[in-house]
């Protein structure tokens, strides 16, 4: 209970610090906030008026105080680009990103763990060598390149899958696989080495001596022991997917938080950048929190 309270307070402080960092970074990065909204023919006086209306001519600390005050009241502000309320505009984007992110997490563990287990079970076979080499490639290949190659083959050449946009499940396949590729590769390798490590533990010999079947030893005892390191690093996988989503959503034109954030940065749409960045920080923090709760539940030493 105490540790939970501590985590909540720490999460809050982290969000506060991140809000300041994001707030400062986007303003220090230069660029003209009026360019996106006002026509190129606008005069310097027009631009100054716009800045004044948006409160952007105030001292930066005062701006930050105003922003925080509104945030605590639940007012996320409006987009500078089209004046839409961020709270309305964000709902659809968050939903889309959740679909993509959750699918990718599912692929990371749903494909990574079974493949790693088979590789460990059939170690030094051609299957193991194939899987292990593919996972090295999966970790080495940058996802923006993988995205382009995937689009080239599966959309342009074969015409099996759409290259961009959103619709049915067909539109989800390529971005989800590209987004999860590195996570799958890491999970395969971790699962394989954890399984092999645990197969050599003394307790496996004890279970064999008691007459338990190899299948039961492998799928119940060795697997359960091997899941611990995978769960403990699941928080990192969340962070990875959130980070990569910026690139992958943009390439595949997936209308989610990542794509919106990239666009907002390009337009210097300060309020939108601030909200979505803070949202990503929150997701990564919650992902790590979920992973450490999962680890505590899965480990009898910590559970008791």
């Amino acid at each position, binding site marked *: 209970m105490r540790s939970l309270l501590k985590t909540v307070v720490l999460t809050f402080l982290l969000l506060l610090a991140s809000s300041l960092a994001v707030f400062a970074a986007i303003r220090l990065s230069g660029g003209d906030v009026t360019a996106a909204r006002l026509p190129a023919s606008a005069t310097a006086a027009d631009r100054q008026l716009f800045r004044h209306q948006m409160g952007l001519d105030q001292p930066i600390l005062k701006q930050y105080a105003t922003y925080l005050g509104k945030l605590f009241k639940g007012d996320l502000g409006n987009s500078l680009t089209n004046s839409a309320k961020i709270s309305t505009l964000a709902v659809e984007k968050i939903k889309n990103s959740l679909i993509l992110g959750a699918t990718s997490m599912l692929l990371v563990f749903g494909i990574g763990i079974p493949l790693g287990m088979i590789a460990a079970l059939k170690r030094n076979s051609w299957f193991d060598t194939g899987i292990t080499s593919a996972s090295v490639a999966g970790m080495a290949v940058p996802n923006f390149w993988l995205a382009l190659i995937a689009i080239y083959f599966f959309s342009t050449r074969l015409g099996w899958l759409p290259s961009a946009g959103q619709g049915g499940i067909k539109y989800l396949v390529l971005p989800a696989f590209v987004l999860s590729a590195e996570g799958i590769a890491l999970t395969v390798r971790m699962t394989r080495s954890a399984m092999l490590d645990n197969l050599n*533990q*003394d*307790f496996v*010999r*004890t*279970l*064999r*001596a*008691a*007459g*338990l*079947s*190899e299948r*039961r030893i492998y799928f119940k*005892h060795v697997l*359960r*022991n091997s899941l611990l390191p995978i769960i403990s690093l699941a928080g990192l996988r969340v962070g990875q997917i959130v980070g990569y989503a910026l690139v992958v959503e943009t390439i595949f034109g997936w209308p989610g938080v990542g794509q919106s954030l990239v666009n907002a940065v390009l337009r210097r749409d300060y309020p939108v950048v601030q909200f979505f960045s803070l949202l990503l920080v929150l997701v990564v923090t919650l992902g790590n929190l979920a992973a450490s709760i999962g680890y505590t539940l899965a480990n*009898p*030493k910590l559970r*008791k």
Partner: protein
Amino acid sequence: MTDEPLLDIRDLSIGLRGDGVGYDIVRNVSMSLYPKEILAIVGESGCGKSLTALSVLALHASPPLHITSGSIMYDGRDLTKVSASQMRAVRGAEIAMVFQDPMSALDPMFTAGTLLTSAVQAHHKVRYDVAKSRALEALADAGIEDPRRRFGEYPFQLSGGVSQRVMIALALINDPKVIIADEPTTALDVTVQAQILDRLKELRAERGMSIILITHNLGVVASVADRMVVMYTGEVVESGMVEEVLATPQHPYTKGLLGAVPRLNSDAATLVPIMGRVPQPNELPPGCSLPIVAAESSMSAGPIARILRYMVTP
């Protein structure tokens, strides 16, 4: 010994086979275990005691280790030739094993109860509550004070002595005819050692089980075992009734082991250690049939010198 042996190991050799290497670690080992007897296998670390015992239940790491010749007869069958599923039916139900380091030999993710009930259900199609009541019985039989509490505890919650009793319960639970205990008391303190050994003796008396006890402690051998086998560099160098072997050891290596035992009733001020270490199989000279050259001389302590001192005359 008028009975037929229950377990009969004949001319067993176990070899290491792999990339360009090939030599036998255990060579031509023979020993018999008779009903209701406690047989001790003694020798230093690296003499092939544990490997011989593990091979009975095909628990040696294979590959790279393989049984290269010989037989292990049990109940009319050669255990070196049975299928994997037949071997699984023998493990725990006919011949059970107790290992030396109880803390690492129990799966840390499951309670003692889960391990025990899994062992029951591996051999018998019974409901969980039946398996559970057998598990509680086995815990009590292994000398555990509060079986219900221990049933729900994880290995990290158990002391070394209690862990070893859980291991013994795991070995007892399917009522095997033979228990192989591989240095069951090495990791435990002396009082717990004595309790565990007493429990093994009682179990032999109560259930008529036969026990193979692997140890390097001659005191344990003298107080517990009926017969003993002395192993050195993967071979049996001496065997016989415990009193006879301890009173009149024939082989220089046995004499060496006895010389290294501290005695309260002796005037000797210092112990006589066996110098050096057991030569590894790949350090043995080809042929392995050197006669004993000099037993009591002040030879150097290298492995070859030890072979010269302790090797059997063929």
